[in-house]
């Protein structure tokens, strides 16, 4: 099926880059603090919950890719318009845009919260958020190819952090993990649900899809990316469980950062300060992707100039960031967004797939 804004040849990128785009979109602020939520329900079997979530994601991604494959080169916004009609479709698109911006805001604000807690309690929020947003706007203005580049570079620079986790191994108490499967099935599922919000981000495939060079391979690389992320999450979680006691995990706000506290290098004490600063590298791809996808929608739905909508949405994100003053407010908004994402990311794609299926069948029949 034909779609409207087919990207030119110089804008598409090789499909295997998708691997990193997916990883970068999934790993953000969540990885710093997901342990607590999962462990609270699933206890030391939390890693199983993570694996369950991973499995679900693979299924959801399969649906997503199938949906996209029905069209030649369309993103979610166009699919909405086509499958649901102009009004309902646009309404849902707007909802999705709002959701993306919300995600961006949350990522930004929680990062600033981390910075304010660990490094600079006195630095006002507006200063940090506006400087990060400036960076984001600059990146988004460069277009999708630049964003994909940022994703890859950010991956290369931040992956090293993973190795530093090895410092925790001597302190790990592997007995904390057993007995396996002590938690009952219900607990595991709830744990998996708790996990869900942490790993969202792969829905970016909905928007990036038109820019892929070989669209047939999209499924393969997305699934690979998702698998990789799940493994990383699992690794971090297993390490955390072995390193901390259960009560400790429950009390610690950012267990992953606390993991780095133990790292000691001859020329560097207190490695978590480096991590907190370095984490900007990890959240920037997030922000870029969300902001880009949201503004892309504004272009598609309202036919706005994307440049202008980038400025506009950045201002919006900034405003919301400033409204969130206390830790409690951020937490509250986070939980709320988690609920929303459950429906928008995990349930909705499946529904959408069937709608699209019906629509395309119908059309094919009409053509016949």
């Amino acid at each position, binding site marked *: 099926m034909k779609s409207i804004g087919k990207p030119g040849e110089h804008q598409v990128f090789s499909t295997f880059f998708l691997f990193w785009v997916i990883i970068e979109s999934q790993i953000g602020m969540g990885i710093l603090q997901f342990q607590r939520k999962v462990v609270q329900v699933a206890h030391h079997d939390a890693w199983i919950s993570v694996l369950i979530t991973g499995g679900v994601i693979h299924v959801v991604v399969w649906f997503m890719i199938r949906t996209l494959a029905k069209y030649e080169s369309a993103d979610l916004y166009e699919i909405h318009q086509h499958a649901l009609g102009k009004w309902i479709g646009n309404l849902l698109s707007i909802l999705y845009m709002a959701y993306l911006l919300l995600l961006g805001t949350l990522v930004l604000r929680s990062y600033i919260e981390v910075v*304010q*807690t*660990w490094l600079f309690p006195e630095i006002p929020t507006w200063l940090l958020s506006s400087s990060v947003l400036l960076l984001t706007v600059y990146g988004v203005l460069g277009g999708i190819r630049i964003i994909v580049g940022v994703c890859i570079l950010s991956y290369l620079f931040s992956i090293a952090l993973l190795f530093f986790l090895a410092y925790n191994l001597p302190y790990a108490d592997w007995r904390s993990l057993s007995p396996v499967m002590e938690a009952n099935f219900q607990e595991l599922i709830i744990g998996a649900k708790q996990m869900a919000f942490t790993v969202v981000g792969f829905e970016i495939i909905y928007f990036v899809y038109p820019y892929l060079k070989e669209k047939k391979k999209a499924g393969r690389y997305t699934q690979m990316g998702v698998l990789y992320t799940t493994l990383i999450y699992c690794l971090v979680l297993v390490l955390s469980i072995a390193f901390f006691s259960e009560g400790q995990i429950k*009390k*610690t*706000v950012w267990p992953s950062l606390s993991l780095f506290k133990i790292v000691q290098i001859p020329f560097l004490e207190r490695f978590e300060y480096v991590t907190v600063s370095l984490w900007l590298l990890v959240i920037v791809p997030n922000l870029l992707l969300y902001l880009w996808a949201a503004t892309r929608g504004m272009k598609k739905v309202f036919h706005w100039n994307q440049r202008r909508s980038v400025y506009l949405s950045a201002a919006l994100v900034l405003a919301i960031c400033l409204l969130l*003053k*206390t*830790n*409690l407010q951020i937490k509250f908004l986070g939980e709320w967004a988690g609920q929303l994402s459950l429906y928008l990311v995990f349930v909705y794609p499946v529904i959408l797939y069937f709608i699209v299926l019906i629509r395309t069948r119908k059309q094919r029949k009409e053509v016949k």
Partner: protein
Amino acid sequence: MKRRIGAAGLSLFISATLVITGCAQQKILDKMGLSVVIGYDRVDKDRLLGTNVLHQFDPMASESVQIVASTAYTSKGTRDKSNLEMAKKAVSGQLRVTLYSEQLAKEGIINLVDTLARDPTIGARVFLAISKGRAHDILKHRYPEFGNIGTYMYQTISQNIEGESMISPTLHDFMHDYSSVGRDTILPYLEQRGKEGNELVISGAALFQQDRMVGVIPTKEVFYVKLLRDRFQAGSIEISIPREVLGKYMKVSQKKRGNDPIFLVLDTLSSSSTFKLVDKNRPQINTEIKITGRLQEVSEVVDLSKPEIIHKIEKAISQAMMNEGNKVIAKLQKLETDPIGFGEIYRSSVRHSNLTRDKWYEMYRDAKLNLKVEMTLVRTGVIE
């Protein structure tokens, strides 16, 4: 050509005369005795004892300061007298702190401060402070732990102002409050403590009625004066809330500890306040203060992950601050001193009030000053 040579000659002549006769009097840095701190005491009915702490730059000298004291009728008189026993001329362009003894301050110090403000060599950022006991004794004492009493005293005061635990006591602030209608000065109160008096402590703040000292409040209460008078940007405070506030959430073992209050430490406090004059005949001013801060320490184990507990704590802190603050205000009213500046609020809200000092003190005594505090805990650290 001739004219040019003539002009050149003339200008050469003029400049030579200027250089030779018109050289301004030099004040070469190392030829001057630079006072860092000057302390004043009352000797008898009308004589002053001025104690001058001067920098000693000679690397060969055993002490890093030189202390010279002399008596005279005026402050500049003591300086002139001190010069008689010094190798370098005493000048006050690098003055950082002036210290007045409590006794002197109770008589009024405006004539001593006025001369500072009049002197162009003295900066507006000179600190004024009040000493418990004789200023001379504090300055003359040899402190084993710090060499230069002058810079040490200056840094102590400025560090505490930057840390927002003391109200800025600069010369400008003093003159400002002294000459404004509805506000009084508040200065740090220094005290010698410890074994043989080897420690120098800011133990509180001296309250003034105009230029006369009328009382002292401890540092804990200074917090509330500052809260009302200025804005906090990064202060900190230790505060207690009653145990029963969190009683419901405590374990049995914790409950057993009886009724001791729970102590909390808040830091990175920032505050903003609004004042409202409700009644202008019998002045009633309602003050609302909003504070945000970080909970740094709790003296009891509390689960901070529950929002309702945090809200409870916030409420309790607000209540405690309100009580303490109102107490401080009442104390100030009793002493008839207005360091917070309610008078200025009155003046600025009432058109054509023609407020004078005396009028205000009259009203201030039985003004109704209500304080309301709203505390928000922004964050609670890396663990909950």
